């Protein structure tokens, strides 16, 4: 079944939109925000031990950082009353500080009042603005617009723009455990965790979810995306809540986590990009941001605490990988990565997604020329990373049914232990990374980029990565025959790994090696001004951009394939 791409549109699992958790949540938005705000306060009070002095310190830190942010890093999306809000917070804090006669309990109460204003502001800011008619509209725009473009490009002739010969599903292939996902989404709550390489991922996943007949998932999208109006519209419509990465203060982070946890408990299927941001290096994420992941674990435990032991209260983690031949942002991502790793002295920000014009240009290119994308859906797991069966029961490695609740039990009862749950988040993170590698689908472009880069590396063994990337591109020639043999060697090893279930390959990889290479060369980073890998007129394999080659090579990092070249 894994060979077959899903070409039909599934029926919705919940036909009536009123049953969609995200619609219910939108209806109860006000109450929900209040609840999030209250629970966040509770958490923060617990974290500060209900001690007014510690709370005061946290409030002051938050105030200081927020004022600094308002001054130094303002964004278009920021509300106009930001500085007045924080000035008022400042006044209130000063006032409490000056009243020296207050008892400890009274001071706590006063600070709590300030805290309450902050958490309710944050909750309101984070909360999604899902509107069903917007969602429907966006979904049809995406599907209609994209398929028009697609048909215009592929079917020649007048009126081809109205042809329906190609659909988006020819372009974007969805593979893997889609039936299980649909099934479990009707039984419990799904948390989808995809790899993240491009800003397009959110839209792509949103579209995938709708093709699979699933109700919209809520997800945390970077607030910076809301700066661009076209994105803001899409995001709101898809049930996005806002994550502001500029705000690293305790109050904000706790409110954000509470929002996510409460939404999962509410039954909203959620989407986290567990890598946090787009993968700068092009490698599959190996260290995950565990903050949001931990909210899935917390929500699961909270359901057990409430006595919801059946599958309706169960949280399922579904890893997803998205595979591209071409990542639009690759040049700036890899520059970021190299400068973060420390060697490049000059770091200039250059975000290809900064204007709507560039995005539209990309979309036109993307849909009019061939560059396939595949989305592979992994097996569902419980919050500890155990696979689950069709009824949502967790299984151990021998296939025995186990109770996920037992992970939260001590002395015979479900207990809250934040240190334990922190460790569980680590374990879950590791399991997700493992699954990412297993369901990752190798494309021809990954193979050629990996092989070429490793060949160049082994010819220049004395150079470190940064010197390697600075090699003059015009001095690099790979004879085709050697290149082909090396590709074959990597390919054979990939097939071995596939047999062990440790990786997967796309169907276009089942041709002769010459064809695979030709396919790979014509697709790898195909729309970049400088191509990462081409065959020149003398038949040599050459690169126009070593950093980009490195970026696309990285997709196959983490499998030990580089050892083939030692």
């Amino acid at each position, binding site marked *: 079944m894994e060979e077959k791409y899903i070409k039909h549109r599934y029926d919705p699992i919940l036909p009536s939109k009123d049953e969609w958790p995200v619609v219910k949540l939108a209806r109860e938005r006000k109450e929900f925000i209040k609840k999030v705000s209250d629970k966040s306060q509770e958490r923060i009070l617990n974290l500060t031990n209900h001690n007014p002095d510690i709370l005061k310190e946290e409030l002051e830190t938050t105030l200081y950082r927020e004022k600094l942010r308002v001054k130094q890093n303002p964004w278009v999306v920021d509300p106009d009353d930001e500085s007045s809000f924080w000035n008022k917070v400042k006044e209130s804090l000063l006032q409490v500080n000056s009243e020296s006669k207050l008892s400890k309990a009274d001071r706590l109460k006063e600070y709590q009042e300030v805290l309450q204003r902050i958490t309710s502001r944050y909750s309101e800011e984070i909360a999604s603005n899902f509107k069903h008619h917007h969602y429907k509209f966006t979904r049809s725009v995406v599907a209609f617009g994209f398929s028009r473009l697609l048909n215009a490009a592929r079917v020649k002739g007048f009126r081809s723009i109205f042809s329906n010969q190609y659909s988006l599903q020819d372009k974007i292939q969805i593979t893997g455990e889609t039936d299980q996902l649909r099934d479990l989404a009707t039984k419990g709550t799904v948390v989808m965790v995809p790899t993240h390489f491009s800003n397009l991922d959110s839209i792509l996943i949103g579209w995938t979810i709708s093709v699979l007949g699933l109700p919209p998932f809520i997800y945390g999208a970077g607030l910076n995306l809301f700066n661009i109006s076209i994105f803001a519209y899409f995001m709101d419509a898809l049930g996005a809540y806002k994550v502001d990465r500029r705000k690293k203060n305790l109050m904000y982070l706790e409110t954000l986590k509470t929002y996510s946890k409460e939404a999962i408990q509410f039954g909203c299927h959620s989407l986290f990009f567990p890598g946090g941001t787009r993968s700068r290096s092009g490698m599959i994420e190996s260290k995950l941001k565990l903050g949001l992941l931990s909210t899935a674990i917390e929500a699961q435990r909270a359901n057990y605490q409430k006595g919801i032991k059946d599958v309706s209260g169960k949280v399922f983690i579904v890893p997803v990988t998205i595979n591209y031949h071409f990542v639009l942002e690759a040049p700036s991502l890899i520059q970021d990565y190299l400068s973060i790793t420390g060697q490049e002295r000059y770091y200039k920000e250059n975000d290809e997604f900064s204007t709507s014009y560039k995005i539209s240009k990309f979309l036109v290119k993307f849909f009019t020329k061939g560059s396939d994308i595949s989305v592979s859906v992994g097996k569902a797991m419980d919050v500890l990373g155990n696979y689950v069966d069709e009824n949502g029961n967790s299984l151990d490695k021998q296939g025995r049914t186990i109770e996920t609740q*037992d992970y939260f*039990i001590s002395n015979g009862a479900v207990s809250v232990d934040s240190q334990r749950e922190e460790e569980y988040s680590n374990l879950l993170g590791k399991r997700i990374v493992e699954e990412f590698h297993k369901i990752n689908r190798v494309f021809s472009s990954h193979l050629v980029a990996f092989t070429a880069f490793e060949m160049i590396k082994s010819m220049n063994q004395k150079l470190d990565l940064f010197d390697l990337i600075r090699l003059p591109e015009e001095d690099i020639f790979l004879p085709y025959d050697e290149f082909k043999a090396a590709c074959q060697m990597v390919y054979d090893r990939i097939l071995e790994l596939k047999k062990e279930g440790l990786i997967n390959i796309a169907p276009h990889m089942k041709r002769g090696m010459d064809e695979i290479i030709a396919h790979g060369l014509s697709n790898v980073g195909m729309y970049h001004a400088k191509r990462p890998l081409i065959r020149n007129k003398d038949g040599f394999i050459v690169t126009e951009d070593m950093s980009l080659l490195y970026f696309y090579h990285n997709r196959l990092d983490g499998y030990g394939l580089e050892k083939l070249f030692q």
Partner: protein
Amino acid sequence: MGMDSKNSSNKKVGVVGVGSFGAAIANMLAEKSNVIVYARKPEVVEEINEKHETQGRKLNHSIIATFDPEWICEQCEVLFFVVPSSGFQEVVRNFAPFLHPYHLIIHGTKGLCLNLPGEHDLNSLRKIKRSQLLTMSEVIQKETVVVRVGCLAGPNLSKELSKGQPAATVVASKFNEVILEGQRLLRSDKFQVYGNSDIIGVELSGVLKNIIAIASGALAGLGLGENARGLLISRGMVEMVHLSNALGGGVRSVIGLAGIGDLVATCNSVDSRNFTVGFRLAKGETLEEIQSDMEEVAEGINTVRIIKAFLETSDLRAPITENLYRVLFEDLKIEDALHFLMKYPFNVDVDFV
């Protein structure tokens, strides 16, 4: 779940394995809790239940023995695994079907297991990578659904513990609750229990110190004095630090109770099996002769083999381990090994802090 009916006051604690250390731990636990011990052989179980002793070791009268893994897993939420590393994997596999995620396991085994593909063993594979060797906590996590795992390590010579002499131990776990539970169950006027979150570092400390203990026994067997022992312990610790680091343990654990604490105790004790191996080697016996009449295994011998194979894949040098390997398995004379080590260029006293 069978555990719903139990309340915490009569909670039972399980001990798997009744060797000298297992028996000592069971007796210490029995001072506070109801203890069930597991032994594989029915005759051992019978002896314990009827005579309250096994192989000459007295057991607390309240201790019940069983050879049924299912029953002990049902009865106990906390289990102490104290079986030799050579049989550890097998015992854990036998227990796996009856273990649930609510179980807590603390082990007291100071050895390593191999995790090799297919039919391979150490004879066919001369080199092993880190991923191919497992500490006992890694075995438990690999074979069972139990995640809340801890280990017990420190200067805990069974003979002294069973006499009730004062001592201390480290309970290491990533989970605070495991440490707290270990402390609650074991702590007494005569027994202090420290906590450490670096479980791999603590396990490795206990494992690696056995190598140095063999070497120490050898020095004693050669009739060398305290200067030589001081030299060995200090160089041994440096070697342990580097090995532990390469295997994923922290430096701090090695200089703690489970590392240097245990090292000093074992390197001075004729009651240590590892020390005895070295001592008898120096007196001219062969490894085979020594092993044939030892009642329980000296973990250090196997550890030397495994670490030697690991060294083949890393660019680390561990002169004490490497020379001990040659003495144990390649007929290098102890005197020659000592001679070699005295010439080895350890120029820097301490290079890890």
